[in-house]
């Protein structure tokens, strides 16, 4: 017998959906009114004609990619090692990973500028510093994703099985651990991408031509373009999200047809 959702359940679904969708629809409709008295994609056209839209987007996307790679290179072995050898360290790493939620980016960026703008280490003009800052901001997402991935995998026994077959550490991480937390890594990458793409403070104060500052500048100077940009970035986010879902469903295509025997 199918259980029908009650009226109250429906009410809350409708309420929740409209809370989310109404502003989006309003923004969309607003973005279509760039020309007086007609609905059209003029605002979108202007955005796409703006070369700094592409330049900043490309820059931020590249930074996001580098952040993802660097974060994974740092975090996968670290969290894996903690899982395997120092389960108690786990708590500490988790706590550290939450710091970006507590410390506002503005504090982070001034800390970075103060520390790295004078000898012995001058890094303020390096992209490395921006990426390092992004890594900190993305830490909670990346850490949590990797943690969840490892938690769902029998890390210790798989490692021991691989060891007994003669595998060394790099091989175990690359051939046994990473493939089994691939879904989690994709999720972490997606969240990191979204975070870096919309990030304003770090890029602004370290003076990089990133997508975040570009968005901010446009919204200060224009009326309709920011609305169009919002819809565009929303669409882009969903395209990426769709790719993630595709990845995950590919994982699930190898479903069980053996059954229990």
């Amino acid at each position, binding site marked *: 017998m199918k259980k029908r959702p009650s009226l109250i359940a429906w009410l809350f679904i409708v309420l929740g959906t409209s809370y989310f969708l109404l502003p989006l629809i309003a923004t969309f409709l607003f973005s279509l009114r760039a020309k007086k008295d007609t609905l059209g994609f003029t605002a979108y056209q202007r955005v796409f004609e703006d070369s700094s839209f592409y330049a900043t987007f490309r820059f931020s996307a590249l930074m996001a990619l580098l952040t993802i790679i660097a974060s994974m290179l740092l975090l996968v072995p670290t969290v894996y090692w903690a899982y395997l050898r120092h389960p108690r360290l786990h708590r500490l790493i988790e706590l550290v990973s939450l710091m970006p939620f507590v410390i506002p980016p503005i504090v982070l960026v001034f800390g970075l500028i103060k520390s790295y703008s004078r000898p012995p280490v001058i890094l303020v003009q390096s992209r490395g510093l921006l990426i390092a800052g992004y890594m900190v901001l993305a830490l909670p997402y990346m850490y949590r994703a990797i943690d969840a991935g490892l938690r769902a995998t029998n890390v210790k026994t798989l490692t*021991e099985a691989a060891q*007994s*077959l*003669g595998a060394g550490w790099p091989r175990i991480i690359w051939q046994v651990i990473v493939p*089994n937390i691939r879904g989690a890594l994709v999720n972490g990458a997606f969240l990191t991408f979204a975070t870096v793409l919309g990030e304003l403070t770090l890029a602004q104060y370290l003076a990089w031509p990133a997508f975040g500052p570009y968005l901010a500048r446009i919204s200060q100077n224009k009326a309709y373009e920011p609305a169009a940009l919002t819809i565009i970035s929303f669409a882009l986010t969903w395209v990426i999200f769709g790719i993630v879902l595709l990845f995950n469903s590919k994982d699930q295509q190898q479903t069980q047809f053996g059954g229990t025997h």
Partner: protein
Amino acid sequence: MAFIELHNLTKQFGPTTVVSPLNLAVERGEFLSVLGPSGCGKTTTLRMIAGFEAPSGGSIKIDGADITRTPPSKRKIGIVFQSYALFPNMSVAQNIGYGLQIAKLSKQAIQQRVDEMLAIIHMQEFANRYPHQLSGGQQQRVALARALAIRPQVLLLDEPLSALDAKIRVSLRQDIRAIQRELGITAIYVTHDQEEALSLSDRVLIMQKGEVEQLGTPAEIYNNPKTSFVAQFVGTLNTLEATLHDAKRGILQFGSQQFEVSDSFDAALQGTTVQVALRPERLSLNGAVSQNQLHGVVKEQMLLGPIVRFHVEVEQHLLFVDVFNDTNVSRLPNRGEAVVVNFAPHDCLVLAR
């Protein structure tokens, strides 16, 4: 010289001693089971041999070579885990071939060995399946093939059947033993299941609280348990306390009745209490008259398939008596019926304190 030699092997976790100095020699091609309750140190011992735990003291030698400090990846030891531990991202064939790929065998050689292993475990048609498409028993067979594919010096099995259901457990344990014999590989099998240990092994090592209780063939362990722990742990056992009535001739007083054991005791022990163990299958009801007879009343009877287990109350003490479930041979007594429990003096095991 034995193939595997453990010399004074110990393990401490902080202040707790998990394995007390352990000396063990396993011959080439032998199947040795390590049996004990959980927390007895059997798995830790296995993990030290595999290299996953560093011993606190002592040494491990395989084929004369000291491997105490060798990393696990260099030991050439195959291991099968309770949780199968197949690589979920690899197919059956890739799992089996993984160790060979690491050893840099040619593609052709790997393919050949994988086919060979698949044939041994009778799973040729599953080569391209993934672990999650297999049942537990199938996964464990693949795990066994994976461990054996690298032609290890030693095969270690850590409670490999504990996660499987009863039917598969029995058939797979026969397979494991047959494959081990066929390949002539030295195997150490850790289990808490005495039936597995007794039915599979050339020898059984019984551990408790990090100490060796007894090492011997299954028959020795079952028929001549050296300690009361072994006697209690392996098989079902009746234990009763009786007073020495005649120490020299081994006559014991049990309540108002007497029986005889084949041991004789020091006269000084006269009047003291000793613990006697009796296997239920060594006792019989009514029928044949033995040297020892105890009178009692049937309190309960339980059908265990081929045998019927009677609970007979003798002197306010319950004795288990196993009788073949064959009504052609003798009539089985009913509940409440008075019976005579017969047994021979040499069936009594006087347990060490």
